[in-house]
């Protein structure tokens, strides 16, 4: 995985500096804040999305992922949807990328249809999966983009919490999005994240981390 360190006065400047070095767009990278002071922000930007052209040079996908790919391809055919299904190289957990035209119908309201498709896929290949192993299904990198977006939201919220000291409640999110936020902030010594409310209106709250002595 390619990565680069970026520095700037603001978070955006630091990310842009790393993106220029990597010759990548924000859509294909993951951002980790290494240091943030009023004078300077340092980030590590890692490329996580590989272009389809790079697929051929990647390591072969594992058998279960290939089996799932074939099943999803067949399912889409039965649904009358013309789309290409590929196994994302090097992905862990194994991820199937569905690409094609007008695939909004496969994403559905707040990604509901996509999530249902993923559940069906995991049930279909369930017997071939190891304990705890899962297949992730993504359509036009919707899920990946959502994860990036919520991570950026998390970082902005964390900056605001550090400045004001007040907790921030984010919009209602899906479990995988909340998980992405918790993971993005778990290493931050100054802020912490938790969740409130009930599904499907469960929201992440980002607040100042209390000292251990309290």
């Amino acid at each position, binding site marked *: 995985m390619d990565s680069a360190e970026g520095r700037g006065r603001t978070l955006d400047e630091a990310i842009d500096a790393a993106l220029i070095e990597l010759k990548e767009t924000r859509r294909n990278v993951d951002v980790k804040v290494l240091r943030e002071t009023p004078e300077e922000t340092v980030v590590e930007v890692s490329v996580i999305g590989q272009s389809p052209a790079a697929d051929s040079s990647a390591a072969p996908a594992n058998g279960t992922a290939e089996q799932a790919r074939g099943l999803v391809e067949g399912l889409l055919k039965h649904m009358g949807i013309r789309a290409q299904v590929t196994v994302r190289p090097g992905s862990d957990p194994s991820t199937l990328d569905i690409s094609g035209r007008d695939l909004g119908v496969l994403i559905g309201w707040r990604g509901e249809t996509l999530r*249902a498709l993923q559940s069906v896929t*995991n*049930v279909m290949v*369930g017997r071939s999966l190891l304990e705890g192993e899962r297949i992730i299904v993504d359509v036009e990198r919707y899920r990946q983009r959502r994860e990036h977006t919520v991570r950026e939201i998390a970082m902005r919220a964390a900056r605001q919490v550090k400045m004001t000291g007040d907790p921030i409640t984010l919009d209602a999110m*899906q479990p995988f999005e909340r998980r992405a936020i918790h993971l993005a902030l778990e290493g931050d010594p100054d802020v912490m994240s938790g*969740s409130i409310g009930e*599904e499907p209106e*469960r929201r992440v709250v980002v607040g100042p981390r209390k000292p251990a002595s309290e």
Partner: protein
Amino acid sequence: MAARAAERIRKAIGLVNSVADGAGDEEITPTEIAEAIRDCLEMTEVDRVPNVRRYLGESLDAVSDGMPADFVAMTLYAALGALQEGGPKL
């Protein structure tokens, strides 16, 4: 209203997906998921559209039998889909 029933089914799906996705921000037990599904079954709206009660019953059985979260989710999505196809637009 079918919208209310859909909301309850979505709540149950959300709980199951939290387990499947490992959201890690809530301790969810099978009892809680079963309760959420029973809440759906208590609604009279689920009888107005064919198959919704059947799918909900199957998902409750799946929870009782310790089936994987994805299986339970799939059955709940089937209930939601039936409700959406058979009822007014949600």
